[in-house]
């Protein structure tokens, strides 16, 4: 029970914590690249976490009702909507950041970027947090379960947050150029994963048609291995993705790749190397 609690809470916390790290790295990078003209207050993280926890509490409280919607596939529909909402916010973010050519309305742009970051993290916490709350709330009440689940949960959350902190400082220790590049790659993978997860959930609910699996790498890297879990949390690794999932994953990546967020890496490369 204890070890299981560690794993379950770790899985859920990890996704949110890695997302927060990547977005926080971008917050810092924007500040370094643009100075005061396009600077985001890091307090968005605090707001998104507080609101996210409240939202997760509400969602987990209403899950019994939600799961009855649409002939018992309500959870899939709501969770897929959360993924699609997150993806849209990420794309807005990627398209409103100033680039070398577009620098107007910096105030509006920074507000919108802050809003998107808050929204993405808020939604991630609602989704992952509600699962933790259902697990802990539903099972810790049983006699003898309380101590192992609560302590296991605390340890799982601790490990998950530590990995997030490690990623943050790992990226921040790099040069701006490389932090930006790696952050961007992670953001592309995160965006792709959101699209892919939405597809998976809607297929599970029979709202989207079945498509055959694109490949099977379960022999190469099992999803239930430690690396498999880590990659699942970070980039949505799946051993047997469907073709439609793959298409949506690639579409999410491409959308980020054509955004100003992506293009901006190049023109600023040289000047940034000096400032670091």
């Amino acid at each position, binding site marked *: 029970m204890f070890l299981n609690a560690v794993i379950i809470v770790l899985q859920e916390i990890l996704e949110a914590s890695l997302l927060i790290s990547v977005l926080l790295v971008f917050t810092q990078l924007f500040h370094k690249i643009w100075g005061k003209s396009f600077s985001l207050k890091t307090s968005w993280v605090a707001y998104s976490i507080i609101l996210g926890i409240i939202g997760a509490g509400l969602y987990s409280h209403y899950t*019994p009702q939600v799961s009855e919607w649409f002939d018992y*596939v309500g959870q899939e529909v709501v969770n897929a909507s959360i993924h699609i909402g997150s993806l849209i916010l990420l794309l807005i973010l990627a398209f409103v950041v100033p680039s070398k050519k577009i620098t107007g309305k910096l105030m509006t742009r920074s507000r919108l970027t802050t809003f998107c970051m808050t929204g993405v993290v808020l939604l991630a916490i609602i989704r992952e947090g509600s*699962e933790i709350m259902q697990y802990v709330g*539903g099972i810790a009440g049983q006699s003898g379960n309380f101590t192992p689940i609560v302590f296991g949960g605390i340890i799982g959350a601790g490990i998950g947050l530590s990995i997030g902190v490690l990623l943050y400082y790992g990226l921040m220790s790099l040069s701006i150029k490389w932090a930006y590049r790696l952050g961007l790659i992670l953001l592309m993978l995160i965006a792709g994963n959101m699209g892919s997860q939405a597809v998976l959930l809607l297929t599970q*609910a029979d709202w989207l048609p079945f498509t055959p699996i694109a490949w099977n790498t*379960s022999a190469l890297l099992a999803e239930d291995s430690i690396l498999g879990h880590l990659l699942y949390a970070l980039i949505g690794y799946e051993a047997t993705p469907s073709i439609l999932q793959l298409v949506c994953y690639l579409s999410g990546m491409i959308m980020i790749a054509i955004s100003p967020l992506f293009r901006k890496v190049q023109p600023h490369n040289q000047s940034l190397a000096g400032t670091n």
Partner: protein
Amino acid sequence: MRLKFILRRFHEMKNSASMLLLSITLTSLFAYPASAAVAEIELVIKDHLFFPATLEIPAGQKVRIRIINQDSTPEEFESYELNREKIIVGNGQAVIFIGPLEPGRYPFFGEFFPKTAQGVVIVK
């Protein structure tokens, strides 16, 4: 008089023919989802166990699994092989669609009580 009768018969025939066509079209339209009706399997969770622990389904067909949780605790149906994951609230039920699948064994488990809640989908 006779010609008029023949013409009328002809009209009636045409009408009935078009009605027939229309009804065939409509029937096939409405019959499509009916013919594609998905088989349903019931899976019960009780005392952190799955009943039945082995589900047999035909290959190449979509199946609706209705999971009924008779425990007061929530459970999470999870399967890496089936690519499925879903929380079933305590004393609640949930629906998961799987397939069409290739023949083989697809294990699943309850993530909240993995020691006891184990099962397998066998596709034949």
